């Protein structure tokens, strides 16, 4: 099949792909809780948050600070947390990451992992506090497996985002 001539140099990537692919990937991450399985334990890692952090670590100036608000709202629709929980916590994560960017100009991958792991742990614990404040009564120890899975999942999410990052420039 003959393909039309496509310039391989000096190509302008699609603006939709540049902005859309990261946003859609985070939203799909938030939607993983829709898998048809009834969990009796909070085991599923917060894929939306992990992807958000991975994008933020790879492409620092991808999103303005307020981008966490709509993405968090979308996550709240699915997560079962009280509405506003992810909106609040994800925005705080972005603000904290801005402070980290000022502190540590040079960061390597492992430091990123430590920072992301700490932030995910804090977000999960604060999420538990919010859920408990609105009628739940769950012990924090129960989150331990979820926290471990989430922290170990982060490098995978970075790989995925790196792959998507190439895709969005070449699409």
């Amino acid at each position: 099949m003959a393909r039309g001539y496509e310039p391989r140099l000096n190509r302008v990537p699609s603006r939709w792909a540049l902005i859309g692919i990261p946003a859609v990937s985070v939203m799909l991450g938030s939607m993983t809780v829709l898998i048809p399985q009834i969990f009796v334990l909070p085991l599923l890692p917060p894929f939306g948050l992990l992807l958000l952090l991975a994008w933020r670590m790879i492409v620092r100036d991808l999103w303005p600070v307020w981008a966490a608000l709509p993405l968090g709202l979308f996550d709240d629709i699915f997560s079962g947390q009280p509405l506003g929980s992810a909106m609040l916590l994800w925005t705080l994560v972005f603000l904290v990451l801005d402070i980290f960017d000022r502190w540590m100009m040079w960061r390597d991958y492992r430091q990123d992992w430590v920072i992301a792991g700490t932030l995910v742990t804090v977000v999960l614990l604060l999420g538990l506090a919010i859920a408990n404040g609105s009628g739940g009564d769950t012990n924090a120890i129960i989150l331990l497996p979820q926290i471990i899975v989430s922290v170990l999942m982060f490098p995978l999410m970075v790989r995925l985002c790196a792959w998507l990052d190439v895709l969005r420039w070449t699409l």
Partner: protein
Amino acid sequence: MAPPSPRRPGFSRRAQYGIFASYVIAVAGAAFALLLVLTARFDPNGHSALQSILADMTSPISAAARSALASTGDVGESIGAYFNAASKNKAMAKELAAARRKLIEADVLRQDNSRLKQLLGLKTETFQPIARAALVSSTGGSSRRYATLSAGASQGVANGQPVVGPDGLVGRVVSVGRISARVLLIVDGGNVTPVKRTTDGAPALAIGSGDGRLILRPLTTGVQFKAGDVFVTSGSGGIYRPGIPVARAIDQGREGTKAHPLADPAQLDYAEVEPIYQAPPPPAPSQIGEARED
């Protein structure tokens, strides 16, 4: 040289204002989100109404994924069933014979029971389920244990109605959309179910522990629950009719007796939504007062 920070755009006033504005929006949005979270605490009804609108939009996705997964899952199971078919068949035949004997005994007991109830003049209420629906998804990432039921207000489901699976109590409806409803499972940390022991009717509270188990707290002192004790709803306080199987005790813990719910939501196909049970009214206060005066 350090990578140029996107948050320090140099001397361009326009870029500086843009960044400042994005921070203002972020902080204002976070404050708004905090208010939303607080409504969940102080106005749960309004908050759950908001969430049920959103649940309506998402439940068809899980329902479709569920039916797709269920059909592939069946294939694996039916292939697996061919292995050990002969030995399984023998064991099942033996079980069937035992079950038949039990069934006859139960029939006799049921007849006895209805006769005795007639003698006592008790009226047996029959519960017609309001709706039958699948539990399509759950909040696997959150510490709250909600499941989404694929039936809503259009099928007659309303807030507070108990949801019962074939093996026992699953939970109760906490928010209703048009075509979906959110069910708070009995294993959720914020859910308390009044139960009683089947053998002697000793009352207890079954409190969800958030890890798929329940904690049983006896309501009377001096009662010790043993592993293997079975608990059913007591009907006190309304909502759940008496006699729905709830949990089986597994061991003594520090905080109370741990128990497994009898209905495993992970195995659940269909659940029935039942009408809210209203406990028979206590004797009128005037009669009590007269009795005291006498």
